[in-house]
């Protein structure tokens, strides 16, 4: 994890258990193993936040986006953490969350879209092996009209690991013209690994556009054969395919150098699977 640790060291460390961003922040903030952290982004301000969990502690993260605020959050799980993240978004705000679970962690997200035209996107990736068990829970609450949410969670499980995604999009009775999407795509690397994928919708408004879906598949044997015919080893071909599967989630965090370091961390874990 050296590249990852080196990369985040260059960011601005969050001091204490709260942070308020009043204007556009010039460089990403980073919090390592926060047990309790509250981040407020003032109206019209923007920030990037990286949260890294290296120790198996409980963590509670609260994100508050005021009107038209923008926040990009990348949360990286390197240990068996139990973490809760809550984002409350005012009108016109945009929150983009990337969650990368490289350990048997329990990560729970609750998104409250409280103001019109608030937008949330969440990209999640979990990679579990051996006897690891990880859970990614997501509840997106569309509480008012005209908000949009888009979540895409990808899972890879090998060994005897279990990966769970439990998602729920809730659309309140008055939340008309909601645009919500939730996708879960998974790959099983062994016969003994397990994936539980439950994307759900709970809709009480009648003028909405909502979709959800889940797939569980295996490594594409035809693609592996194709790559080996061009001279790649089985391990190289498998890694390339997994990186291809996971790449869009990892690279979406919006911080180029962090995306590359994360991709290497994913590849390293893959190499042992």
């Amino acid at each position: 994890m050296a590249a990852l640790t080196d990369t985040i060291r260059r960011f601005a460390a969050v001091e204490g258990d709260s942070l308020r961003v009043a204007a556009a922040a010039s460089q990403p903030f980073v919090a390592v193993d926060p047990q309790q952290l509250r981040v407020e982004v003032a109206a019209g301000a923007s920030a990037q936040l990286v949260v890294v969990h290296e120790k198996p502690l409980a963590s509670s993260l609260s994100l508050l986006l005021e009107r038209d605020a923008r926040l990009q959050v990348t949360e990286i799980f390197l240990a068996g953490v139990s973490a809760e993240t809550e984002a409350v978004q005012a009108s016109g705000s945009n929150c983009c969350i990337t969650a990368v679970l490289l350990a048997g962690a329990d990560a729970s997200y609750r998104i409250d879209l409280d103001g019109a035209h608030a937008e949330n996107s969440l990209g999640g990736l979990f990679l579990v092996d051996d006897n690891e068990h990880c859970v990614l829970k997501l509840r997106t609450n569309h509480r008012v009209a005209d908000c949009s949410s888009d979540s895409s969670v990808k899972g890879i499980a090998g060994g005897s690991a279990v990966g769970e995604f439990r998602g729920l999009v809730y659309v309140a009775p008055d939340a008309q013209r909601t645009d919500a999407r939730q996708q879960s795509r998974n790959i099983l690397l062994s016969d003994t690994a397990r994936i539980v994928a439950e994307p759900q919708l709970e809709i009480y408004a009648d003028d909405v556009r909502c979709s959800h879906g889940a797939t569980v598949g295996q490594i594409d044997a035809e693609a592996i054969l194709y790559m080996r015919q061009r001279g790649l080893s089985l391990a190289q071909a498998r890694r390339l395919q997994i990186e291809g599967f996971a790449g869009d989630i990892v690279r979406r965090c919006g911080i180029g150098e962090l995306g590359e370091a994360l991709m290497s961390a994913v590849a390293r874990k893959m190499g042992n699977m």
Partner: protein
Amino acid sequence: MLSVKNLHASVDGKEILRGIDLEVRAGEVHAIMGPNGSGKSTLASVLAGNEKFTVTEGSATFQGQDLLAMSIEDRARAGVFLGFQYPVEIPGVTMANFMKLAVSERRKFLGEEPLSAAGFLKLMREKSAVVELDSKLTSRAVNEGFSGGEKKKNEIFQMAMLDPQLAILDETDSGLDIDALRIVATGVTKLHTPQNATVVITHYQRLLDYIVPDVVHVLYKGRIIHTGDKSLALKLEKEGYDWLINDYKE
């Protein structure tokens, strides 16, 4: 370069190849023709090393080495290229990343130094021009969203990148319109040298107007039942296979 003797191969216990003999020398172009289901694609897959097929009898040597003892990737690194009839889409894997690894493995085998980043880009540009492949496609995911013609051009582009000794092209002409066929076939002939060899598997004479074969084989029920020169392909186009296969019908 390639010497195949009495090759038998089966899949799921069913024998598909029933004694193939084939000699391909450097500088030669061979065409393999034959009705559907005669074993042409199986022959290509077995030579490339697809583990789905089991070789039950016979031998194949490539440049003096026991080809059948080599893994699929080792055959590729040693210079055996298979142009796929149905190139596979690999979402999320860019052509550039894929080719970088493939070229680097090939160069390692040849004992050549790894290419610099600039050298690799230059090679990609040069070789994409061979088949008039839009260089933008090389930054896209492998074959994803490519048209039928682009997929086949992409096969020949990869062949150009890897500079194989032996290229086996499995129905590279299928699904191509006239322009794409000309571009793909011209690309293959541009890559042909006295040092390498090409085996094209095809149903149609029209590909052989561009890629002129030295030898034409007819494969039927897992055996090469007839071998001739390029005029054989013209005769087959006109008269079909019946005059050849009547003797072999069961």
